[in-house]
């Protein structure tokens, strides 16, 4: 068996008939996503002021079951806040994600004693990153990119909370399987996002258009856009997980320095990073690198 690599790889535009597509490989896990849209929608599905986001997940074997439906709803939770749906009213943006191979991110339930208990939680970071790449490839207007983290907590080894928490523990499947809790955290890397206020429903529609007061409602830089946790954990553990991941997302590796820092204390950003403080995690760096290459390829004619 090939050694497990901490770094995933991805390619864009692998399906030439789709508007945008991405293939994501990490060790033996492989995901393929395609995005089409904005395009024509069935009249009964259309929304008068915004695009409709359709998310379909297909399993590697068999037909989609409740597990895929659950993943679809979770994936929607991560993608919906960043897609600028008001840019293309009465259209459909279709995201189809094919799980090609599940690999070591197997679907074993976190902290389960029964081998038949499964969870798709460990797959979520790959699914989110792959669909984000496909959306970027399709040039669908987004307000932000995402930085996705998988965190496991393994209390068996040590009493020190920080060494129990493992961020992106992809090289070590035992950490995935023996953990008591697993968390998926997704941060927005945007500096500040425009509000999707034109698509807001309800009686506030008109007043919303009047002013910029609603900007704060959309994901801002470093906002936690999405979180999903599973297993048994205390509130302190979750807070510590969030704090450590936030630091990782800002490129501050130091578990060592100021470990005793208060959770609420403001994190000081390194010099020179003011322009883009967020998105230093593994997935965000992958997205930036892959998209940079794709844009570079498109500009090749200039040489």
């Amino acid at each position, binding site marked *: 068996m090939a050694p497990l690599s901490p770094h995933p790889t991805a390619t864009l535009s692998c399906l030439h008939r789709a508007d945008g597509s991405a293939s994501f490989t990490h060790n033996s896990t492989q995901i393929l996503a395609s995005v089409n*849209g904005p*395009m024509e929608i069935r009249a009964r599905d259309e929304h008068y002021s915004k695009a409709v986001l359709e998310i379909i997940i297909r399993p590697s074997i068999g037909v989609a079951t409740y597990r895929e439906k659950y993943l679809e709803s979770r994936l929607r939770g991560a993608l919906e806040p960043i897609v600028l749906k008001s840019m*293309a009213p009465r259209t459909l943006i279709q995201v189809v994600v094919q799980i090609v191979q599940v690999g070591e991110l197997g679907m074993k339930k976190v902290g389960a004693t029964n081998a038949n208990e499964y969870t798709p939680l460990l797959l979520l970071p790959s699914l989110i990153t792959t669909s984000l790449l496909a959306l970027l490839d*399709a040039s669908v207007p987004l307000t932000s990119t995402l930085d996705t983290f998988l965190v496991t907590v393994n209390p068996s080894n040590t009493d020190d909370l920080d060494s129990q928490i493992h961020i992106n523990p992809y090289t070590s499947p035992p950490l995935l399987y023996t953990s008591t809790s697993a968390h998926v955290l997704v941060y927005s*890397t945007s500096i500040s996002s425009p509000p999707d206020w034109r698509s807001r429903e309800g009686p506030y529609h008109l007043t919303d258009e009047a002013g910029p007061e609603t900007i704060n409602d959309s994901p801002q830089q470093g906002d936690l856009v999405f979180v999903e946790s599973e297993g048994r954990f205390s509130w302190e553990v979750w807070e510590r997980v969030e704090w450590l991941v936030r630091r990782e997302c800002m490129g501050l590796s130091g578990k060592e320095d100021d470990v005793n820092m208060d959770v609420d204390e403001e994190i000081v950003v390194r010099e020179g990073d003011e322009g883009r403080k967020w998105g230093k995690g593994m997935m965000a760096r992958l997205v930036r690198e892959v998209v940079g290459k*794709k*844009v570079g*390829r498109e500009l*090749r*004619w200039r040489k």
Partner: protein
Amino acid sequence: MFADEPPENLVLPGDTLPIPLPAPTAKGAAMKVGPGLAHIPPDTIIPVIAGELNVDEKKRMIWVESDGKRYTPHLHDPVIAIINRSSSDFYHCTIPHSRSTTALLPHLAFENATKKTRPQLNPGCVVYARISLASKHMDPELECFDAATSKAGGFGELKGGMLFDVSLGMARRLLGDGKKLRQLKIRQGLVRAEGETGKKVKGAMCSGLEVVEELGQRLGFEIAVGRNGKVWVDSEDVRTTLCCGRCIVESEFLTGEEQRRLVREKIKEFGL
């Protein structure tokens, strides 16, 4: 093949703009925020798609240069549309690769068209038309003449020939956007101006039209490019048409020099 380096001003959605906005020339002067950017009142502009950020200080424009496959209609864009059916006043058309399936082309929006003498177009006919109405809430409308001069100006039915698919970026390049961008970059001192003799200068930027220039020197053909990523090619025989179309489609990711080489090879391959 060399590695595809990301451009200097690469932006991803939500990034801080890597270059400053053009300074206002006068108080209250307008600035054009082009495709790929969103304005958050009062004074924040963020990219919403991934691509290369470009600024034109002179025209006070800022936009994101990006490729895609799905076309969004914009006013005055030349497009290649296909007639679906005719009703009492309109032809109902499809703009391929567009976000909406139907577009309306009035029977009277042709050169010299009157109620009695209007062009007879059947379903399946291909027209080269200009977008006369574009809104994100409505289906676009087309016209096949210039409303100011009432001349066709190259628009109208495309008879014979073949259609080829290219990306939206490639279509814009074929319509001369690459040349404009090159002029801008030369003015900004980012690339060197090409020599008078047409010889390749190190550090010079290509226009992206090399494939058409090379084809034009060697073959006789007609070409119409729609911004929706369709290219129509016609010539005296099918072989020439195919050769031209293939060259254009395959030159998408090639440098200027490679495009010229591709054309020479293809012409040999087709025995022209």
